[in-house]
């Protein structure tokens, strides 16, 4: 296995900061906007963004929830092992809000489609946007594109993009993994 570092710690944090300022350009003080991180890996980015936004906008309340999409996936009964469900934690109403769906890596787009389906169980948002840390270009299987992108990566299907987080893995980094 070949590991190639695409984004390392200082640049990683700078990217998060840049994404936050881009969000503020469109969502002002976040009074009508909420963040929803997709389980399992999108929740780290969502929490990170929430924390950073709260630093930049100390007077605002930044609502951030975690959404599990397991039961809405389109590959149920099409894989060897059952899909692992995670917890959902959304303690606010998304009806009429501007929702920003957050995930770490955008690849085929199928997770995001499931995420949008799962999210509708909590109400009808006014608008829905998508923020991803890594956009694996030219690999989409359905027509879904992100509104905010941390970085773009050109990769082939057999490669893997892994985002590591300080909270869970001890270091903030993005790696491209090639199976030899």
């Amino acid at each position: 296995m070949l590991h190639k570092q695409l984004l390392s710690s200082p640049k990683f944090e700078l990217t998060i900061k840049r994404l936050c300022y881009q969000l503020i350009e469109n969502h002002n003080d976040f009074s009508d906007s909420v963040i929803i991180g997709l389980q399992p890996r999108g929740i780290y980015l969502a929490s990170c963004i929430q924390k950073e936004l709260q630093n930049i906008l100390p007077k605002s309340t930044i609502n951030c929830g975690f959404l599990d999409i397991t039961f809405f996936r389109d590959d149920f009964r099409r894989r060897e092992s059952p899909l692992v469900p995670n917890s959902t934690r959304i303690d606010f109403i998304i009806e009429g809000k501007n929702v920003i769906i957050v995930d770490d890596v955008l690849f085929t787009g199928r997770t995001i489609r499931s995420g949008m389906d799962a999210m509708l169980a909590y109400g009808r948002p006014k608008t829905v946007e998508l923020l991803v840390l890594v956009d694996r270009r030219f690999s989409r299987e359905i027509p879904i594109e992100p509104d905010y992108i941390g970085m773009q990566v050109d990769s082939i299907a057999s490669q893997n993009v892994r985002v590591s987080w300080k909270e869970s893995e001890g270091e903030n980094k993005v790696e491209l993994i090639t199976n030899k």
Partner: protein
Amino acid sequence: MQNLSTRHLLGIKDLTENDIQLILETADNFKEIINRPIKKVPSLRDVTIANIFFENSTRTKLSFELAQKRLSADIINFAASSSSVSKGETLIDTVNNILAMKVDMIVMRHPYPGAGIFLSKHINAQIVNAGDGAHEHPTQALLDAFSIRQKYGDVAGKKVVIVGDILHSRVALSNILCLQKLGAEVMVCGPTTLMPRYIKDLGVKVEHNLLKALNWCDVANMLRIQLERFDIKYFPSIREYSMMYGLNKQILDSLDKEIIVMHPGPINRGVEITSDVADSKQSVILEQVENGVAVRMAVMYLLASQNQVG
């Protein structure tokens, strides 16, 4: 995540501790889902399930049906009383005819013990046992374990007493097996005539004094007297049974700790449990019903996931 170790849910006997934990953990997620404003998920949208009930049922049938609808499965319902069974059709023929309509899973309740096991050897679909005679009622045991876990955080180390008609109860056997696999201590309590002869071989404590049993336990699971299964008289009168083994508020309040009271339903108020106990804050009877939907969703979700499309 691992799969269940079994293709059918015929009884708790076939499940490992890991299987039970997997079902309970998956049910946690479904419990959250059935409390959402929109309670439906599309997981089983291409799965067809037949509910075949050869015996009367209210809770179990509705609970299974609702669980299937919440999972977006297609369902057909079949009640033996209004079917060709009364014209002399055999069980295998009835089920094979249903399967010819391309059904993937069968949920069956039958008055004969082992009916589900018999069927699983002769047909191709997955089978969920919704109660077979006085043998097993696995989903009831799973939802009881789920309810205990919800109240106490864990089933292991808890003391559970099952009170009443142990002899005719499928809930008792499934509960004993399930609770023991999860590490709980189990006691059965009731008149000697309603105790199966070799019950001690299951590793349970046997007590004939209700007060002693209640003082020992953390959870009391009160069972109904199954008069419809009585071939002889097992005790002099319902009134006497109720005086000896009925749970009332006075007994409950006399205990030095707060136990939780469970009942698989249907309740015979005034017989095994009085109204003030059934409606008290120590009673989790209605929570059991709610948990039943989540647990049955988990069971059918995990079983269906073993069947690949195409």
